[in-house]
């Protein structure tokens, strides 16, 4: 015969158990927690210390003397710094626009078309990403020297585009990997031309990738030192270059203030790009599931 579920369970007191870590709950192991804390401390202390000194009254910057924006004011009034920031923004803007356009086109082509030399071509496109910066830097220098082009904003911008657009292409291609081709087919089926389909169906889908790629290109350009150092001339200093020459002289709270500003700008754009990626993923998931 059957046993009912509530059998004559021994009337013991209910035994409660402490929450012992499970075998795979690694994060609850003490030593790993210590390593993680140390790791994050190691990652963040240098930057945070640098940012902190930019607000410190004391120039010698170990001991905290008081909070001040003074160094920022000083940096703002520093003509060379200010000009270099303007140069950076100028180069960044142009580089971003051109890289995004070129990169999007290449990314789209790589996604859409099959051609015989595709694999070597892909490796080629990704070369600027993998190659050591110093090699590319001296190559660009030699190239411009041979052509007799004076080093300046133009040469910097051209070089920045050269190493930025492959990144944009990667972002676009990844984005397009999730594209539902039948949307384009439906559009053609309903009577739209190839051109109309492109603008009304494909581009809106690509847009988050384009924006993310653009933001990425901007941060790459803004942050670059090595390639810029070799392709810039007098009067075309960018912010990282200026910071470098100031650091060479001495690490002061003023230069830290300038660095902090650069960090804030870059992080804003980077977080923006990541938020864009995350938002589009959520939307696509909602659509499909």
């Amino acid at each position, binding site marked *: *015969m*059957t*046993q*009912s*579920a*509530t*059998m004559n*369970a*021994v009337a*013991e007191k*209910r*035994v*409660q*158990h402490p*929450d*012992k870590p*499970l*075998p*795979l709950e690694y994060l609850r192991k003490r030593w790993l927690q210590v390593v993680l804390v140390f790791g994050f401390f190691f990652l963040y202390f240098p930057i945070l210390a640098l940012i902190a000194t930019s607000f410190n009254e004391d120039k010698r910057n170990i001991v905290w003397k008081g909070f001040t924006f003074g160094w920022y004011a000083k940096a703002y009034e520093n003509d060379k710094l200010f000009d270099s920031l303007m140069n950076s923004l100028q180069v960044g803007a142009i580089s971003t626009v051109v890289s995004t356009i070129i990169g999007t086109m290449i990314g789209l082509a790589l996604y859409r078309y099959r051609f015989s030399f595709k694999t070597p071509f892909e490796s080629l496109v990704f070369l600027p990403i993998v190659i050591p910066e110093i090699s590319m830097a001296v190559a660009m220098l030699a190239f411009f020297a041979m052509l007799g082009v004076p080093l300046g904003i133009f040469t910097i911008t051209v070089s920045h585009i050269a190493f930025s657009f492959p990144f944009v292409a990667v972002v676009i291609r990844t984005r397009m990997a999730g594209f539902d081709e039948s949307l384009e087919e439906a559009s053609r089926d309903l009577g739209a031309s190839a051109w109309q389909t492109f603008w009304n169906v494909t581009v809106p889908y690509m847009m988050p990738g384009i924006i993310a790629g653009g933001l990425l290109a901007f941060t790459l350009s803004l942050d670059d030192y090595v390639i810029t150092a070799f392709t810039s001339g007098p009067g075309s200093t960018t912010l990282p270059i200026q910071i470098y020459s100031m650091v060479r002289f001495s690490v002061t709270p003023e230069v830290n203030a300038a660095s902090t500003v650069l960090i804030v700008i870059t992080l804003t754009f980077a977080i923006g790009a990541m938020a864009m990626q995350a938002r589009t993923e959520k939307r696509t998931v909602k659509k499909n599931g």
Partner: protein
Amino acid sequence: MDNRKPIISIRNVYKRFGGSVVAVDNANLEIGEGEFFALLGPSGCGKTTLLRMLAGFENPTEGEIIIDGHRMEGVDPNRRPVNMVFQSYAVFPHMNVLKNVGYGLRVTGVPPDETQKRALEALALVKMERFADRMPNQLSGGQRQRVALARALVKRPRVLLLDEPLSALDAKLREAMQLELVRLQHAVGITFVIVTHDQDEALSMANRIAVMESGKVRQIAAPADLYEFPNSRFVADFIGKMNLFEGSVVGAAGNNIIIEVKGLGRITVPYSGSAEGTVGAAVRPEKVRVDHSEPGSDRVKLRGKVTEVAYFGDESAVFLENATGVNINVNVPNDARRTAAPFAIGDEMWISWNPADTLVLAE
């Protein structure tokens, strides 16, 4: 459980996640040595959580688990006398079949020659000796499952746990493996505990089944007992099909209980428990007969109009509608050769069954 010694005791076990989700709610059961035991239930009922608690990959929030006489609280999975076959099989992709099977022996210090010998024996048990040198990515799903089985059995555990062992296999392979697993269990003689959501698997393979729902163990019984004497609407509905009527208890007589069901009148059913108030009265489709002529008064009977006949080859499922709007489902075996349907749609028929076949469902 007959005379078997209990090898697993689960006592007052609760499992709570995050304070509000109760995955296992006061589970109490005992599994006998050498049994083929099934944890059966719909997804989310807590059966897998319970299995993982046996293996040591979850800890009970409350309650005790005793395996082979030892309390398992605080005992790591690698020191328990149980082994598990995972739903994904988890055959290590970077080792060949023989190394996979011998893994559990190697890491516990068994000498290499003995490891090799026992591993080959285990492979022979699952008929995979020829594949000893193959890599897992060269095997089919069913073959990888056998490797996982051999790998667990070579450790000679007291209990083998299997998590949804047949769910990833196609229909033909599933049937073959059902017989295979039972044969294996007899050959090795150890206790098997399987988790499944498929009632056919549980009914055909297990000695006893625990049906779970929303964390609670609803009923524990041998397959036939479970099928013929379900203790609740949930169990009756989960295992097999049924036709359910609402009734109320109006009296008892000896070992019987008397139920009044609207449209059916009074039914006297053998019933060992005690019930009162409203109960469900159900009958399984294969216990019901459909006739043109009126059956005798010793049967429960009602009139119905045929609404649909579904042909399954070996039997036909006939659906009839009663004047009160109740739908009845009847299985009619095709016990003689015929190509025409046994009844036409729209026919007025007599539906009847032996009152002793009525299921009394108190919950």
